[in-house]
Structure formats: structure tokens, C-alpha cells
């Protein structure tokens, strides 16, 4: 990877993207329907100031929210394009082209390295705007790149998930990204490095049934839809209406499936605190400076022994 692609281009791109968004435009909150200034929405971490709804955001906005300042995008190698020559009502290659034009990204998952509260971390962000965030070979490849970097540099890995599920257009090869992505994140965990997963709206299907549910720490954004099966499929199977709040972040918290629901404006400080406590632990398993260890044989009865 060259200095140009690693450092300069992403900055130029993120600069270009910033000025792409006209500050004078309104955006309609999909939840309450209120019109909010684009600029106001962005300054509020893309959370509706009227109703607190967390809007879906892509990698660029997410990196800006999470990193201290500068960050470096990591290049993800190209994967085989359209291995099945898949075509439904549209060609898969055309869908990819459209998604690239729409998002300005190569594929659904983007990886970057930077500092969060002073500590270095690798962050992978899944973009729902890119074909529903769907998990294909490029997703697997991005997670392998992210985990390789985390292992090589001894850094925590944070994955911000958002996807409807597997990318059907890649058939069985998309299904195989479930074990593949798990191998990637397990390598990080095996090294004693934290793998933190942030579930955003929506995270369902094969993505939740693989890397997105295996974090050491599982965080979700308020109101995010998180589950395995789609709600329509469940309704059709059981022929019952679903309980209110079903498969929402708060529902998962209640059922013990995640550690916490964190407001987007508190996300960075939460991650920073966790990373700091887990990574900067030198001395934790040594006796404190004030304590003298009694020689063996002089440890009083009843003292806690390992």
C-alpha cells in the first residue's frame, strides 16, 4: 500500500465528501417526519434533534463520529466480480455499479485505522446504503483486512454492523462469508485483543448469525432492528402478530443478548473508555506498589490463594 492511497487519498475523499453535502438542504426525519437542516443533523451525529431517531449513516460519517481526528483508510483487495454471473430483474454487475455510484465506495464495508480517545483502533463500518449492506466476498475480505491489521499492530477491532443479511447474488459464496468472517474476528480474540461489535439499524440475517453477534462486547444503537429472521417471515410462519418492540435493541438488551444500548452521541466515549481499560492494563496482574508479598510459609491461614 502506498503512502498516497493510505494517507492522502482518503483525506482528499473525505474532504470532497464533506463539501458534497450542501449545508442549506433539509433532511426529513424518517421517524417523526420533521424537516431538519442537513448541517444541524450532521452536527447532531445524524440523530434527529426532534425525536432522537438514529438515522442510518455510512462509513465516512461514522469514522468522523468515532475517530479523534485524522484516520487512515485501509485498502481492501479486489474480490472476484460476479462469480455466478447472477441476474434477476437486473444484472448483479449493474447493481454493484449503481451502488458504487450512489455511495462513492467500492463495497459495503470500509475499514480505517485511527485513534479513539487517544488509543489506536481498527474500525470496520458496514454501509446499509450499499446494497442493503449485504455480506458478500468483499465483506469477508474487508473483515480479513481489518483483523489482519488489528493482529499485526496489536489493536482492538471495532465493527459497526448494518446489513439485511447475505448478498444473494453471490449465492453459496456469500453464505461461506459466515465462517470466513468468524475466522477473521476469532484471530483477533485469540490474541487477547478486544473485538467490539456495534449493531446499528438494521442488522439481520447471516450477518447477525456470524461476526456481528460474537463481540467480546456487544453494543447497539437505540431502536436498531436486530435479529436473525425477518419479521415478515416470522409472521407468516407463526401466523401471529409480533409483540411491540420485537427485535429492537432494547428488546435484545432485555433478553440478555447484548451488553448495552448506547446513544450515538455517547458511543465514542463509551468505546474510548472500554478500549482504554482493556488495552492499557499493564500492571493489573502485579501487586500494587504499596503491598509487600510475605515469603511462602508466612501467608496467614484463610488468606485467598490462587
Amino acid at each position, binding site marked *: 500500500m502506498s503512502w498516497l492511497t493510505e494517507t492522502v487519498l482518503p483525506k482528499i475523499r473525505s474532504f470532497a465528501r464533506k463539501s458534497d453535502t450542501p449545508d442549506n438542504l433539509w433532511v426529513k426525519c424518517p421517524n417523526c417526519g420533521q424537516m431538519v437542516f442537513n448541517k444541524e443533523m450532521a452536527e447532531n451525529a445524524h440523530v434527529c434533534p426532534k425525536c432522537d431517531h438514529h438515522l442510518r449513516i455510512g462509513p465516512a460519517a461514522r469514522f468522523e463520529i468515532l475517530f479523534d481526528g485524522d484516520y487512515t483508510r485501509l485498502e481492501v483487495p479486489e*474480490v*472476484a466480480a460476479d*462469480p*455466478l454471473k*447472477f*441476474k*434477476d*430483474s437486473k444484472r448483479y454487475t449493474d447493481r454493484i455499479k449503481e451502488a458504487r455510484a450512489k455511495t462513492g465506495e467500492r463495497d459495503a464495508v470500509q475499514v480505517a485505522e485511527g485513534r479513539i480517545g487517544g488509543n489506536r483502533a481498527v474500525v470496520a463500518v458496514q454501509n446499509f446504503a450499499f446494497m442493503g449492506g449485504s455480506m458478500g*466476498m468483499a465483506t*469477508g475480505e474487508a473483515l*480479513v483486512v481489518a483483523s489482519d491489521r488489528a493482529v499485526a499492530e496489536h489493536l482492538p477491532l471495532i465493527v459497526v454492523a448494518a446489513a439485511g443479511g*447475505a448478498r*444473494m*447474488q*453471490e*449465492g*453459496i*459464496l*456469500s*453464505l*461461506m*462469508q*459466515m*465462517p*470466513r468472517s*468468524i*475466522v*477473521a474476528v*476469532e*484471530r483477533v480474540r485469540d490474541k487477547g485483543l478486544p473485538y467490539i461489535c456495534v449493531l446499528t439499524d438494521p442488522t439481520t*440475517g*447471516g450477518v*447477525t*448469525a*456470524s*461476526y*456481528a*453477534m*460474537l463481540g467480546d462486547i456487544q453494543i447497539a444503537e437505540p431502536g436498531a432492528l*436486530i*435479529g*436473525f*429472521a*425477518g419479521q415478515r*417471515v*416470522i409472521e407468516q*410462519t*407463526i401466523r*401471529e402478530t*409480533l*409483540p411491540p418492540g*420485537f*427485535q429492537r435493541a432494547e*428488546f435484545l438488551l432485555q*433478553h*440478555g*443478548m447484548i451488553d448495552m444500548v448506547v446513544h450515538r452521541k455517547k458511543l465514542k466515549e463509551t468505546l474510548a473508555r472500554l478500549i482504554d481499560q482493556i488495552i492499557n492494563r499493564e500492571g493489573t496482574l502485579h501487586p500494587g506498589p504499596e503491598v509487600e508479598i510475605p515469603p511462602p510459609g508466612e501467608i496467614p491461614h484463610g488468606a485467598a490463594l490462587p
Partner: protein
Amino acid sequence: MVSYLDFEKPIAELENKVRELRQTSAADSGDITEEVERLEAKAEALLRQTYAKLTPWQKMQVARHQDRPHFEDYVARLTDGFQPLAGDRRFGEDPAILGGICRFRGRSIMLIGHEKGRGTDGRLRHNFGMAKPEGYRKAIRLMEMADRFRLPVVTLVDTSGAYPGIGAEERGQAEAIASSIEACLRIGVPMIAAVVGEGGSGGAVALAAANRIIMLEHSVYSVISPEGCAAILWNDREKAKDAAEALRITAADLLKLKVVDEVVPEPSGGAHRDPDATIDAVGDAVERHLRLIAAAEPVALREGRRRKFLDMGRVL
């Protein structure tokens, strides 16, 4: 009594005619015997021709055939002293996934697999092979037990997918599947997965992240059911046939894509025409692969599995 699939109608007609002729012929009338033999040969040829070039959608139907051998049939024919083990020790027992220790051709193994059930009662009891979190968590428990006792793990995959229900979601269906895949990848004993019927999505991979993956000739393995894919991408469930083509779900396709290691041929007319021969062929293939990796070190087995899945789709 054979139960025929839609596309087998011409074969059914011939075979029914043979049966009728046999019943009506009172004695060994030379003419009728000759006619019967002629029709039988014709039916057999037609069966072979039909099954030699099944479309993906037809294979889907064969894979779902009600008489296709199931987990319990494999247990009965291939193993001795199978001891079913039940429960996930957390919530319940899920008969959609069965598992236990048994003797297979001279080795002790942990055999785990989906069971779809047979007949109305059986299908309900096994929930059509659609497992809930407790099913996957039982599988995890058994894989970990096998790891501790140094028993190879053999899995038989046959499910339309994990069960979509309220309770299943409440109890963490996604996490259960993810952890089951993770358990497959972690264990330090040989693991061989055989897709013997339907390999339906995440519910199938949960038992199939193995060192070797083999597949019966007419079984299927797919990221989503053709019906589900048609509903989403074509907005029309009737397009399932097209989806089945596009998704590349057949054993031959998966061998080409290097997702499976071996395709085990089925008897003419599919596994349900000769379950014993099918089961023996699967047994032979499992034994062959097991022999190749039985002596490997835990680290090598684990790393081999990780490498296998990391490379998947990279080199086509």
C-alpha cells in the same frame, strides 16, 4: 410404494403400467413377460436419462423428497450403539438436531445432524428439521465434548433453515448459529460434514464449517431458499425455478466453486430409490476422508479449517 415427483410423471406412467401388467398376467404368458421387460427397460432408461440432467429446481425437489434417507436412517445403517444425547443445559431439548456418541466402522465418533422427521407426527416432533437456539447450543455442547474426548465429529446436514419464531429470536437464534459455526472452527478434532438433503442457509452452515465437506449428488446447499430469493429479488415466489438456477445450489456447482470437497453419486432415480446404497456410499466417503485426517494434530486441524474458509472464494 414410490411417491413420484411432478417431473417424474412419464416414469410413473411406465412403472405403473409394468405393475398393472404384472398383476393382470395370471401365468407366465410369454407375450406379457416380453412386454413387461420391454417397458421396464424403457422406464429404467427414462429414469436414468431424467436424473442425469436434473435442473436445479428438480434437484431441490429430490433433496426435499419425503422418502429421502434422514439422520435416523443413517444412524440405523452406519452406526452401532448410537447413544442420543439431549439438551443444551440452558433452556431445552430440540429434536430438530440430533446427536450422540456411536461406533462408526471401528471408530468412536460424535454424530450430529438435522432430523426432519417422517410422517405428520414425526415431522411435528422434529419441527421439520428447523432448529431453534437450543438445538444449535446442544450441537455446540456435543462438539465441545467431542473435542475433550478426542472424538471425530461427523455431521449430516439436512434442513430448510433455522426456525423463524418469536421465542427463537428472544433466545438468540443469531448468536446460537454464530457460536455453533465458531465451535466447528475451534475444535481440535477432525470434522467432516455431509450435506445429505437440503443445506438451507445459516441453519446448515452452523453444522458444516468442517475440515471436509461432502455432498450427495442431488442434495442442494444455498444461501437462501429459491422461493425466498424469488420473493425478494423477483418480487414473485413463482420465480423459484429461475432463482434456483441463478443461485447455483447443486452439488456439481459447489464442487466447481470449491465449496465442497467431494460429490457422492446417488443411485439412479435418487437416494430415495435405494436408501441403503446411498447411506453406504456416504459412509464410505466419510470413512475415506476421516482416514486421511484422523491422525492430524489439533492445531493442524484447526488451522486447516481456518485456512480453508479464509481461502473460500479467493481462488475460483
